[in-house]
């Protein structure tokens, strides 16, 4: 049946107009380095850079890019800010679809997964002949090398963070409490500062997204166990760790708001900044938010507590870095940008803005680091050798899934009392042991 008798031309014209309209809005591309082998390129032209914490760090990156383009007028950098929560899926889709950038921010927690798909160029040789050689923090270099899972350097480290215990100095002073520098002092303060009738709590616990890493920090910090592995078996479900988890989870509702069971860092930080809660565990990244909300007089950020004998054990935080994607058609220019971004001046600028610890050793000597107390203290802990850092297995391709989606709901059950700490730790350990065995068999 003819739908438009005698009107074929009109229909054709309509269809053509539609196609033209869509073409007019198109003017797109294939995403830059679309699949296949990349090339060194001319060292000039346009490169694309994906920021893995877009929005929050956009301003400082734009400043660094402007400096770079001034120093390298032949190179244009297109900045693409991607929200940190979505960056993993954006990379995964781009790898599968073949549309990666030339340079991208890649945190250690997602490094193994991306490197395993051969999307990143090993940078060991480039570093050897670069001005950066010998100027990057050795610990961070080792950390990203280990996180890549192939004994190769897949990112140039740019910054590190650390677990910080933020506490309200005004509330502590009013209650006659000392700095919560030990776990015993921490629990005593949590108890003393809680007054449920007045909606005052000693602590806010992270029960929602991101809870596992924070719980691990508390477990190893209290148990004093200094390694994540004992042979091929994880120490996560060691009885000392289980006991530590029981005590830590026991704070929930007793010394924390009941709503904490759903706390991701956003809610946790927001309620600490706007309420009357004594202590909060987070990393250096939220320092500026606390300053904005409370000023510098009402709180302090100190390294996580020690055992009573002064032993300090902390779990590693993912080191952030810049990766060169193997599909880049202009690796020479991309590498120049990475070198510039990790140089003394740019690295110092970026870390000052983020309140993080610079990977560039010259940047780590800059005066601003001495002025930002939590960053200074965290850097001291990290580099003094007086703390044991338990390296979390970021190299496991399944680490992100295990430490997030697969176990966060179970941690909530522990908080709510419908699962024991032991059952949780055993289940987590089983998954980790399995992932480790699989990773080892793939490496052979």
């Amino acid at each position, binding site marked *: 049946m003819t739908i438009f008798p005698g009107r074929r031309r009109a229909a054709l014209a309509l269809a053509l107009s539609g196609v033209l309209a869509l073409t007019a809005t198109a003017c797109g591309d294939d995403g830059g380095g679309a699949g296949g082998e990349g090339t060194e390129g001319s060292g000039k032209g346009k490169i694309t850079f994906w920021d893995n914490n877009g929005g929050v760090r956009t*301003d400082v990156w734009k400043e660094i890019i402007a400096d770079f383009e001034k120093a390298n007028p032949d190179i244009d950098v297109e900045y693409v800010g991607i929200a940190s929560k979505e960056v993993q899926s954006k990379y995964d889709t781009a790898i599968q679809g073949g549309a990666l950038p030339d340079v991208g921010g890649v945190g250690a927690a997602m490094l193994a997964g991306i490197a395993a798909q051969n999307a990143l160029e090993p940078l060991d040789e480039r570093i050897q002949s670069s001005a950066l050689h010998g100027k990057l923090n050795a610990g961070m270099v080792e950390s990203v090398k280990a996180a890549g899972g192939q004994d190769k350097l897949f990112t140039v480290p740019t910054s590190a963070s650390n677990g910080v215990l933020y506490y309200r100095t005004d509330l502590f002073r009013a209650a006659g409490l000392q700095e919560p520098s030990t776990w015993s002092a921490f629990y005593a303060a949590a108890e003393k500062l809680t007054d449920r009738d007045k909606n005052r709590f000693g602590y806010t616990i992270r029960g929602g997204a991101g809870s596992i890493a924070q719980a691990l920090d508390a477990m190893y910090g209290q148990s004093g166990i200094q390694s994540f592995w004992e042979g091929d078996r994880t120490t996560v479900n060691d009885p000392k760790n289980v006991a530590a988890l029981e005590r830590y989870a026991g704070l929930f509702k007793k010394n924390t708001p009941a709503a904490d069971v759903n706390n991701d860092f956003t809610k946790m930080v927001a309620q600490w900044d706007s309420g009357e809660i004594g202590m909060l565990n987070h990393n250096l990244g939220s320092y500026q938010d606390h300053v904005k909300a409370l000023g510098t007089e009402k709180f302090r950020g100190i390294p996580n507590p020690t055992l009573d004998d002064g032993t300090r054990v902390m779990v590693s935080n993912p080191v952030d870095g810049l990766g060169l994607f193997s599909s880049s058609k202009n690796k020479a220019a991309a590498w120049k940008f990475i070198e510039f971004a990790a140089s003394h001046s740019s690295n110092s600028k970026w870390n000052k803005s983020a309140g993080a610890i610079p990977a560039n050793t010259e940047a780590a000597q800059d005066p601003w680091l001495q002025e930002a107390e939590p960053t200074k203290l965290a850097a001291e802990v990290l580099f003094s050798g007086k703390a044991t850092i338990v390296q979390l297995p970021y190299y496991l391709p399944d680490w992100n899934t295990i430490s997030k989606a697969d176990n966060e709901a179970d941690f909530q059950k522990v908080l709510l009392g419908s699962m024991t700490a032991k059952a949780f730790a055993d289940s987590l350990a089983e998954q980790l042991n399995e992932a480790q065995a699989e990773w080892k068999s793939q490496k052979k």
Partner: protein
Amino acid sequence: MTAAATRTRTASDDAPVSPAVPPEGAPPAPARKRHRAWDEVPRWQIYLPLGIYLVFTLVPFYWILLFAVRPAGSTSLLPWPMTSAHFEKVWTERSFGIFFQNSLLIGVAVLISTTLVALAGGYALARFDFRFKKGFMLALLCSQFVPGALLLVPLFQIFAELRMINSIGSVIIAETVFQLPLSMILISGFIRNVPPSLEEAAWVDGCNRFRAFLIVVLPLLRPGLVAVGSFAFVHAWNHFLFALMFLSSQSKQTIPVGLNTLMGADSVDLGALAAGGVIAAVPVVVVFAFIQKWLVTGFSAGAVKG
């Protein structure tokens, strides 16, 4: 006492019984009785639950507005002193002005393309019998069960082949394609509701099928078009996934993607996030305020006749 009065009482055991007695010899009017009994429910029994629901619904909006207009660091529960700093920040520094334009362009383009194609497809479904029509309808329905994320990589590859990655056109096409099945089903329901004899009368008067559709059927589809168009616009406005994956340049990003970038890995500017949320919500609220009447009529009519 009449049978009707007895029924009224029986049906409204929990409600106050109407004292009114029907005039002698008057015909029973049970429906009217029921309405009267309903009218005599104390106002508080209606307004209290509605009020509780309203508070429950509006408190989060108040909270967003509060964070959006109060200065950073303030813990006041009232939006005073007020500041526009957060709005200025997201609109200029965080490029929400550009994101807003892009979202509007995508929303309007998806609205137009979805409505046009759904009209054509819906008309065919309503007026023509063809082979495998039932199977086709079933396939349309089944396509609603497929989440967008599942098709992300294939779509990404197709658009990369077409060199349309980082093009607003890719999002418009993907959104339109995902909107079409439901829109076509809805529109076909509305068209079926228009008697074919109206079209046939227009044919007798010399119109061809297309013209008869334009001058006779289309004006009667207004509620349906409003329902389908607004649904397409709002969905395209709010949809996050395709814009995140297919668009990279900041100059092409949309409001939901921009909102997401306001939450950093370790840090979040709640004032800016709330201001961004208000900017994102305003067009949707305005659209719904204008089309509310047609929307309800449209969806209910489509649902019954679909």
